[in-house]
């Protein structure tokens, strides 16, 4: 049930932090991923690409992680399970108005992961690219 996280820097039009996920994202490790991204934001990262090429499985807690990551990268306070629909709703609002947030983007999602994202509608929150090179060019 392990998840290996690799962090790299890339430069497109802006500096991009690439976080590659290798393994399974589930209830046992999603908070660790959130903490990794929190550290990256604190260290100055402002554009994040999640490379999902080697992510074989994502449980529903992975959705909570993705949501939290978007919040963090927007400088929102850390997600609190007892409160805090606000930021995501604001994002949802943007989506219904025809724009989406671009600070966090995805690439390389495999069919199993893509299925979870599209079934739950969370794909609406993200620009998703087939591979890393295309994604980096899109920032």
């Amino acid at each position: 049930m392990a998840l290996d996280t690799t962090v790299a820097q890339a430069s497109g039009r802006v500096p991009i932090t690439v976080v590659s996920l290798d393994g399974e994202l589930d209830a046992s490790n999603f908070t660790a991923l959130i903490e990794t991204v929190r550290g990256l934001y604190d260290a100055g990262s402002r554009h994040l690409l999640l490379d999902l090429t080697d992510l074989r499985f994502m449980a529903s807690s992975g959705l909570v992680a993705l949501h939290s990551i978007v919040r963090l990268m927007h400088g929102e306070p850390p997600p609190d399970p007892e409160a805090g629909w606000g930021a995501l709703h604001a994002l949802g609002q943007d989506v219904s108005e025809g724009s989406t947030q671009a600070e966090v983007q995805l690439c390389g999602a495999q069919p199993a992961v893509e299925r979870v994202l599209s079934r739950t509608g969370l794909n609406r929150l993200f620009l998703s690219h087939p591979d890393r090179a295309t994604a980096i060019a899109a920032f």
Partner: protein
Amino acid sequence: MSDPLPPGGPGVDAILAPFRGLASSLSIAIHDASGVRVGGTSPVDAPPGSLTRDIVAGPLVGGRVLAWGSSVATPLAVASVESLAIALGIAHTVGGAGIADVVAARRIEQELAHGRRLQRSFVSLVAPEVPGYELASHYEAAREVGGDFFDLFRMRRRGRPLSVVIADVSGKGIAAALLMAFSRPLLHAAVDNTTGPAEALERTNRILVQERRSSLFITALCAMLALSTGRLRLANAGHEPPLIVPGDGSPILPVDVGGPLLGAFGSLGLFEAEVELGAGDVVLFYTDGVTDARSAAGDRFEEDRLLAAIEAARDGSGTGHGTAAEIVESIRAAVTSFQAGMAPADDITIVAIGRRRPVLRRGVRRG
């Protein structure tokens, strides 16, 4: 770690369980009277510089482990975490985790137990009477408090249609249980007071968004079954698609109509699907605890094994088509054997509704 204590007592591991989370500041070793280590938080858990406390566990007396701190002359009866904490507190009064930490850990344990009980009460365990239909379900709670619930009830409107709600809060623990407690009656009321399942989900979503209850999400599926016609209307907010298992043996079909999960977006824009259950047909609802179930080797149960379990129920059925109860039992057994005795990491919920075949009555000869 072996536990040489006689059965009937709390056991070293059980007593120590709440302490393990405190291992960063405290490590505990328990020895029997002859000095042999019989338990404790693992020494590798303890970072350098942390305090180690030794407890000597004596024989079991009256179901209680007799234990004392290494520097305490009088044995203390340890029947609970609190008394062990007091034992530690007396033995070592300087630094480390105090009694307050230990009692707090104990309280969290108790809250989790409450949460699990709370959660069970949210699952509809008493199925309503539905003439002409067969209802079957299976629910298995995760190790932690999970977020599944389902609700089967006869609606108040004309014809008393059967309503089915199945949902999964994404997340675990008390926050998930609370959100479930909030959402279940909300969904029930919405279903009973709207014209259809899509509207019921939209209304629930609106309330969740306006109330800003939590940062967690809920996937939910709502269905309404008109009993006289077998007409099933359903709408789906991010949940696993239900499966139609035809009574004539033809292929199993997912009802692929979906939309985003509850609580994340201002409006869902859901569409409804409508299917007709014929005699012998079964509709199956489930949560991702089934398809995400994990084997010891790390494989996931996935949809293929789910379909195979349904087919096995059809093949092995005395009726030749698989009743709702046979299908639920076949899936339950397959998941259990797949997990090879491990407790599920996520809640598992399976609900099946079958339309009974009309009973053929033989003419009764009179006279």
